[in-house]
């Protein structure tokens, strides 16, 4: 996207959000946000009072209308924030919707029926349980499961990944998603989703925020905000009685201003924007949450179950070290191993060549006329025959012994045993009948994984590696990757048991999976992430779906959950801490008439009672709009212990919340005086 297009896009987003901030004033939508609803009522009341004074020529109408203006702005800013958050999701929804075209599809009477017997129907009328024949070029009309055939499918419409993936009947790669395209071959799919309920539909609804329901923590926070609003209502409603006892009268407009500045408008106005933006961050990471609850739970996770393959290791055994036999030059071994693997296209072979390049700086060129000896299940060897008669081989221990008719010398034999014990795979390299040494193949742990787990540990999250390997291999990899625990020779039942055990200890568990046999565990886990490439059963059981089918995403999901909760807490703390300064601005202003001595409370030295009240109201509105970017972006989050996070955030948002309004209100007061507005 060019820079200009991007700008146009942004301005479109802002225009839509500005429109939204007005349409969201509709009381039927506004009441869902109690704090803003109350603010709007007070704003309306102040407006009426201001207009009345204007018509009757009572002095003070200007100030009342000025206050009313800023109270309205406060509500509009809150609506704008929500509109902006929703708008970002909507832009993505529009792209998705574009893939949801109405096409004609071929419906079969049953799974085994011949394609020629198909009847054509409109794709949007498909119901769950029907069978559809799809061939190359067809757009998959809705979610389903391949029941016959095999096809490569382009899923870039939803994942952004252009390389086609294989979808076939049976096994764990049978799930197909509506909106994706058959790239080659054909399948028969069974429709799994009712019209309008497909994955794509859900995703659109989700990113648009249309089906957004308040999450448990959000509800609890809302209750607290309503409670605080009620308390301040008591404060403000009883104030005229105390004031009149003290021989002074407080204008209703002033009380209204005091009330709105005290109630937690900042967090009240930004709460839903924070929630929507959190979901949006997840969508950007190509993860779809079926409910907001799952995102919150992700922040609470205590135990992460991680599949070894793909998450912790690359999943292929790779050459880690080349150990020469006694009396053999190391360089000779490396060259021989490289020559034996030059034509080998397996990941293991490539990794040996790569290792040789690393050790020698360059690899030997393919000799002219050399003949490749491929690996077979019978020989369990591969290698290269050169025209000068030299033969290079690498292979399993027993195969090489059989080939050369020799046993490895004692020292080398010990190395071979050590490699096997550590969970690695030893390969012997031979030239002719001479054994040159051994290649240590092992599951290579992804770079950075160890550090990542250390971070998780600092955050109090335990990592458990799940693998089908034997306990020996598993222990070696677990130690190298730095996971806290591992589950070897894991079966789905063992996974489920492990989750139940962790949960009984009060821990929240997150896991990812793709196969149908993962479904019970995914359902049992508090946060279950299913790979989009997985089976429909797995996707149904999970509460999050990763469109990229990348198991490392689990960690990212946890981070997004934490960031969402931190943003909410930080802005709440900030909002409540703001009240101290507001009291010091407004109280002297309204009481100084009764007791001139109370001017000592005017520690900010605000110019006049009117400017003090106006400054507080203006600050209240401006801080809301100023915090919108923070609400949408989320509070910066670096993994750390809870104590460190608390110290930092309390300092920034707690102490900051105490100090910022003092500075802000004073600055606004100076501006008002300079502009002659108060």
């Amino acid at each position: 996207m060019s820079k200009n297009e991007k700008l146009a896009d942004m301005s479109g987003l802002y225009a839509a959000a500005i429109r939204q901030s007005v349409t969201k004033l509709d009381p039927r939508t506004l009441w869902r946000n109690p704090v803003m609803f109350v603010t709007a009522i007070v704003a309306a009341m102040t407006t009426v009072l201001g207009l009345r004074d204007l018509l009757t020529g009572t002095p003070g109408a200007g100030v009342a209308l000025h206050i009313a203006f800023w109270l309205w702005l406060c509500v509009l800013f809150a609506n704008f924030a929500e509109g902006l958050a929703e708008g970002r999701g909507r832009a993505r929804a529009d792209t998705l919707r574009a893939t949801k075209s109405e096409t004609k599809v071929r419906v079969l009477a049953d799974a085994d029926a011949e394609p020629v017997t198909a009847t054509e129907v409109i794709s949007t009328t498909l119901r769950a349980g029907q069978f559809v024949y799809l061939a190359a070029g067809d757009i998959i009309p809705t979610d389903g499961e391949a029941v016959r055939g095999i096809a490569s499918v382009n899923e870039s419409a939803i994942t952004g990944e252009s390389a086609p993936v294989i979808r076939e009947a049976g096994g764990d790669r049978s799930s197909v998603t509506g909106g994706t395209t058959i790239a080659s071959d054909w399948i028969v799919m069974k429709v799994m989703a009712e019209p309008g309920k497909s994955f794509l539909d859900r995703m659109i609804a989700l990113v648009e925020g249309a089906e957004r329901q308040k999450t448990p923590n959000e509800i609890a926070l809302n209750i607290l905000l309503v409670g605080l609003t009620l308390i301040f209502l008591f404060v403000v409603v009883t104030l005229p009685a105390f004031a009149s006892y003290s021989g002074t009268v407080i204008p209703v407009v002033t009380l209204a201003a005091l009330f709105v500045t005290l109630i937690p408008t900042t967090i009240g106005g930004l709460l839903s924007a924070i929630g929507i933006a959190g979901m949006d961050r997840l969508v950007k990471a190509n993860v779809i949450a079926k409910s907001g609850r799952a995102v919150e739970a992700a922040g609470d996770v205590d135990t992460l179950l991680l599949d070894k393959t793909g998450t912790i290791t690359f999943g292929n055994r790779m050459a880690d070290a080349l150990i020469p036999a006694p009396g053999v030059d190391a360089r000779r071994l490396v060259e021989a191993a490289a020559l034996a693997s030059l034509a080998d296209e397996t990941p293991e072979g490539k990794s040996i060549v790569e290792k040789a390049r690393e050790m020698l700086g360059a690899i030997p060129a393919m000799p002219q006329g050399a003949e490749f000896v491929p690996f077979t299940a019978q020989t369990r060897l591969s290698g290269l025959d050169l025209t000068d008669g030299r033969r290079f081989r690498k292979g399993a221990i027993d195969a090489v012994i059989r080939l050369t008719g020799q046993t490895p010398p004692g020292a080398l034999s010990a190395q071979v045993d050590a490699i096997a014990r550590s969970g690695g795979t030893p390969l012997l390299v031979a030239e002719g009948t001479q054994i040159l040494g051994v290649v240590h193949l092992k599951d290579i742990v992804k770079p950075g994984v160890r550090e990542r787990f250390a971070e998780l540990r600092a955050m109090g999250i335990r990592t458990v590696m799940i693998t089908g390997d034997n306990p020996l291999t598993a222990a070696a990899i677990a130690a190298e990757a730095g996971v806290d625990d591992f589950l070897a020779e894991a079966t789905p039942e063992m996974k489920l048991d492990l989750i139940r055990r962790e949960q009984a200890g009060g821990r929240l568990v997150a896991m990812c999976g793709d196969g149908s046999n993962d479904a019970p565990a995914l359902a049992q886990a508090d946060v279950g992430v299913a790979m989009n490439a997985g089976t429909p059963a797995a996707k149904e059981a999970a509460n999050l779906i990763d469109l990229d089918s990348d198991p490392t995403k689990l960690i990212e999901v946890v981070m997004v959950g934490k960031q969402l909760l931190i943003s909410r807490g930080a802005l709440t703390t900030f909002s409540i801490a703001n009240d101290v300064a507001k009291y010091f601005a407004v109280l002297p202003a309204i009481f100084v008439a009764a007791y001139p001595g109370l001017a000592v409370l005017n520690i900010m030295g605000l110019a006049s009672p009117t400017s003090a009240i106006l400054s507080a109201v203006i600050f209240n509105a401006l801080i809301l709009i100023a915090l919108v970017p923070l609400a949408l972006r989320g509070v910066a989050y670096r993994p750390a212990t809870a104590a460190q996070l608390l110290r930092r955030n309390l300092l920034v948002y707690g102490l900051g919340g105490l100090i910022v309004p003092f500075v802000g209100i004073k600055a606004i007061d100076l501006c008002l005086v300079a502009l002659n507005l108060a």
Partner: protein
Amino acid sequence: MTFLAYTLYFGALIGAALCLAVWMARVYGGMPALAGVERAFLRSGGINPEREMTWGSYAMAVLAFNLVCFVVLFAILRAQGALPLNPDGIGGMSPDLALNTAVSFVTNTNWQAYSGEAQLSYLSQMVGLTVQNFVSAGTGMAVAVAVIRGFTAAKGATLGNFWLDLTRSVLWILLPLSVVLALFLAWQGVPQTLQGAVTATGVEGGEQVIARGPAAAQIAIKQLGTNGGGFFGVNSAHPFENPTIASNLAQSLSILLIPVAFCFLFGQMAGDRRQGWAIFAAMGIMFVAGLAVIHVYEVAGNPALGMGANMEGKEQRFGAMLSALWAASTTAASNGSVNAMHDSFMPLSGLVMLVFMQIGEVIFGGVGAGLYGMLLYVVLAVFLAGLMVGRTPEYLGRKIEGREVTLAVLAFLSMPLGILVGGAVAATVPQALTAVQDAGPHGLSEILYAYSSATGNNGSAFGGWGAAGTWHTTALGLIMLLGRYAMIVPLLAIAGSMIRKTKAPVTSGTFPTHGPLFVTLLILTVLILGALTFFPVLALGPIAEETARLAGQSF
């Protein structure tokens, strides 16, 4: 010297409270040696002490028991003229005053709209008030223990047995301590007799009636149980209630002893003493800060009245410092007994006392009540700031969710409701305004003090304010009920909801609820959510009075 004296005082207090907490933990945990007596005692009342109660039945038991107490006490007060043990021939109490007094003693407020020696028979004092001093304190302690169980015990559905907790509180904690203190006070010169008042002829030849009675026993429990209702009208300023420096110190210590011990008991029951110390530290820091203000202002005195300490309304025997310590303790601990007239304290000393009560009596507070009140702030503090570590807020491994927040907010609302709404009405209705003695902001402080004292179940009075009028006896009676039960019931409900949750293990990702950071957070929560609510009225009362005083104006 002053510093050393205070240090010794607090050292003794903390030491005694730590020992007491160990004893209390054993008592509430159930001691085999005491079980026989407990069982026999409860079985004689037809109660099965083994029956575990859910929060609902626990709350019902509390309410039912307190209702019976109220009815019995009300009846005694109304009928005392016809009942025995009435050597001075005192008549029955008026209905509104009896209602106020009965509510006041059942709710552990012990607000005195009456004057003991003039309006109560010995039977009313002994069977009526002293019994309530024990059981109302016992009620608070039982509720606190149930609430602590809810937060700390293993996952379950029940909070214990109210009757058993009450019996244990009274028999093994309040009674032994009271006996020791009563004997000490009697030794110091506090009367303990059933004979009536004596008539004496003074040196000037004038006749005077000197009231006396079974005072020592009642005073001991009035201090230990944070009751505060004196045997005599002027409470612990009376030479018979508080004759010596030694009796004064012993009583000052007794006021705070059990409330402080509850902090440590909490830590013990939580299996993590640091949790108890954190709560103690938050309370202690606020207490010392408030005490420092009162001390400084009282010792410095009012220059408008000449040099020297502010001695108006204080006993010469005790002086400014001991009066300051008492004033801080009695308002912080929801005790309400006084050894000096708070009305005569300096304006900002009065401000501190008001704040101590308005935040809900959570700086040590009433026996048991202070701790469960503070747990309310803990729930709110953890909920507000707990999110900032990136997890759903949790306290001691249990999540704080919508239900807990709703209940906490409900309980929390009782304070502004009682103080602000009650006070605003009292400042407006002409009938109520007749009670005010002084003009200007000081008069407002008097109203605020009365309503803060009633809502916080403190019971101390500013003095100078006519509490006996029908309006206030009734209004304050209702507000005392609000302040007591609108806290107890939601807190038991919170405890009942917490105990059903699985405890999450503590990890480095757990929000730390001990250590200086949490203490700071808790103090700020109390100040911002609790005290700040009352900032506007405090500005019109004591703060306005202070600024006027500085400008040379007095009221």
